[in-house]
């Protein structure tokens, strides 16, 4: 799908944020979104929702410039600040905000008041069908399941033919299958309409499922931008690493640089890891992030492997988390390891036993503090 000229969203937003719940910071962000889904990813309190509120016109930036397509909807220098109802931006809130006193059909036609009644009904019927909830038209929102409510909220927003769509974690609480089905319907809709969609989430799974473009936000600034692999697999900041599912965040000191091999050795508490070469000198403190699922377990010392880090340790605990088993291995430093249930069974993993951990150099990521 090629983005049409004009179907873009440009935003330059600066806003000082004071909050009792989160630390105060200045939101300072420049977005340049083409048609299609862009994910705004970051830990909670990073300023993601504030960005959406500013674009929709619900919150006023201290300074900046927001243009949707050709039209400038906000600009501090030109003193333009359109009210939300004049921006033609659709916004699906995390709470969905369906009107509880109106039926599904009345909710969907709410944004079509400028059309004759028959036309309103026809458009509502069409979009409800597109999102597979046409049979629920006469129900009230509280009579619907979570997934149905989410579909109705999307239909209500998109029926107005918005110029951009803002989604604030709209699929939280749905299982993966249902999520994927709704996202597919959204993609089908957008293949025809081609508007920029800004999708806010703090869930790594959603990034993987949706990802075309990802913008990672933390403390109000863009920290990384690109494909999901680029952004999530090489997190540069500690908070982002935690959000991206790096269960192991280990502090250590650089003890040896091997520039020719492109690696360096980091001494943790008791153990040493070989990690990719980073911008550091011998003696510098660094943090290493490793996904629990990137660590292999073996019952005996493996031989003839390309992996550079082999660590012997004691299996401290095992915990079943659905289809995976989370293990804690103590080798002087404690590592979190995840294996499938089948693997745990076949290896005969038991707490108290001795295991070997195998970690590839490039599974170790350096993060900034």
């Amino acid at each position, binding site marked *: 799908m090629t983005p049409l000229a004009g179907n873009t969203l440009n935003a330059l937003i600066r806003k000082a944020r004071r909050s009792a719940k989160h630390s105060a910071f200045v939101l300072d962000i420049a977005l340049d979104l083409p048609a299609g889904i862009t994910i705004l990813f970051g830990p909670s309190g990073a300023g993601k929702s504030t960005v959406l509120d500013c674009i*929709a016109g*619900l919150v006023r930036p201290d300074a900046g410039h927001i243009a949707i397509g050709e039209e400038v909807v906000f600009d501090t220098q030109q003193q333009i600040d359109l009210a939300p*109802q004049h*921006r033609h931006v659709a916004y699906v809130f995390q*709470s969905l905000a369906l*009107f509880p006193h109106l039926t599904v059909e009345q909710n969907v036609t709410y944004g079509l008041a400028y059309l004759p009644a028959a036309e309103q009904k026809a458009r509502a019927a069409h979009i409800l069908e597109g999102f597979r909830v046409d049979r629920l038209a006469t129900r009230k929102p509280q009579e619907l399941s979570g997934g149905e409510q989410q579909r109705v909220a999307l239909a209500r*927003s998109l029926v107005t033919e918005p110029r951009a769509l803002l989604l604030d974690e709209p699929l939280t609480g749905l299982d993966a299958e249902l999520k994927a089905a709704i996202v597919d319907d959204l993609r089908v809709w957008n293949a025809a309409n081609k508007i920029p969609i800004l999708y806010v989430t703090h869930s790594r799974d959603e990034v993987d499922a949706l990802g075309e473009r990802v913008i990672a936000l933390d403390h109000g600034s863009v920290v990384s931008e690109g494909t999901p692999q680029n952004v999530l697999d090489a997190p540069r900041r500690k908070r982002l690493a935690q959000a991206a599912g790096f269960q192991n965040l280990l502090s250590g000191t650089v003890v040896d640089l091997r520039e020719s091999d492109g690696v360096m050795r980091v001494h943790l508490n008791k153990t040493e890891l070989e990690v990719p070469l980073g911008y550091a000198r011998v003696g510098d403190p660094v943090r290493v992030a490793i996904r629990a699922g990137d660590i292999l377990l073996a019952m005996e010392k493996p031989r003839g492997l390309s992996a550079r880090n082999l660590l012997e340790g004691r299996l401290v605990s095992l915990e079943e988390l659905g289809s995976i088993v989370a293990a804690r291995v103590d080798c002087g430093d404690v590592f979190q390891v995840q294996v499938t249930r089948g693997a745990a069974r076949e290896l005969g993993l038991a707490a108290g036993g001795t295991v070997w951990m195998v970690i590839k150099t490039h599974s170790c990521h350096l993060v900034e503090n």
Partner: protein
Amino acid sequence: MEAMWLSIKLAACVAFILLALGMPLAYWLAYTKWRWKFLLEVIVALPLVLPPTVLGFYALVAMGPRGPLGALWTALFGHSLAFTFSGLVLASVLYSLPFAVQPLIVSFEGVDGKLLAASAVLGAGKWRTFWRVIVPLSLPGVLTAVVLSFAHTMGEFGVVLMVGGNLAGATRTVSIEIYDHVQSLEYAAANRLALALLAISFCVLTLVYGVNRRVRQRTWMPWTTE
């Protein structure tokens, strides 16, 4: 019977005016971010704690021929405002103001802000959001406001006595007539009227509590503290 009819007429007028006046006032008080709004809230709440005679006294002075309101009224309509039905309505509106405005404010504030944001993003202006979202979701509060201002006006005594005096057919309400009967030791007649007033008040409050219990929305009552 004349007195009973007069009381109902007065209460209905006051309830209607307070609804029309209270909705915009409550809307403004519920959503404004003006830093001095608490001063207006104090003024609205004042009749709750003020003795009716104090309010009635100042209303009477304002309505008198030398008061600003009385002078204006006389210039417009050719007769004085004090000791007339219109004067009574005016004073009662002031006196019952908190009973209409407070439940409306509490109801309006109780409407989820995200719904208002959703309405705006869907293209609705403030007027449409008010009538299509805020009012429908505040119906228990609107009902409470109407019923409380009606009931409170039905039962008022001090303000009526100060402003209205005791003119049969014009300003002699039920509560004044009950007082008259007691003064003349006509206990049976006083009892008939008192019982009727008691029955009306009971029914009205039963209605409010019943509806509010069913909808389970937060509503303000004069005897709830927040």
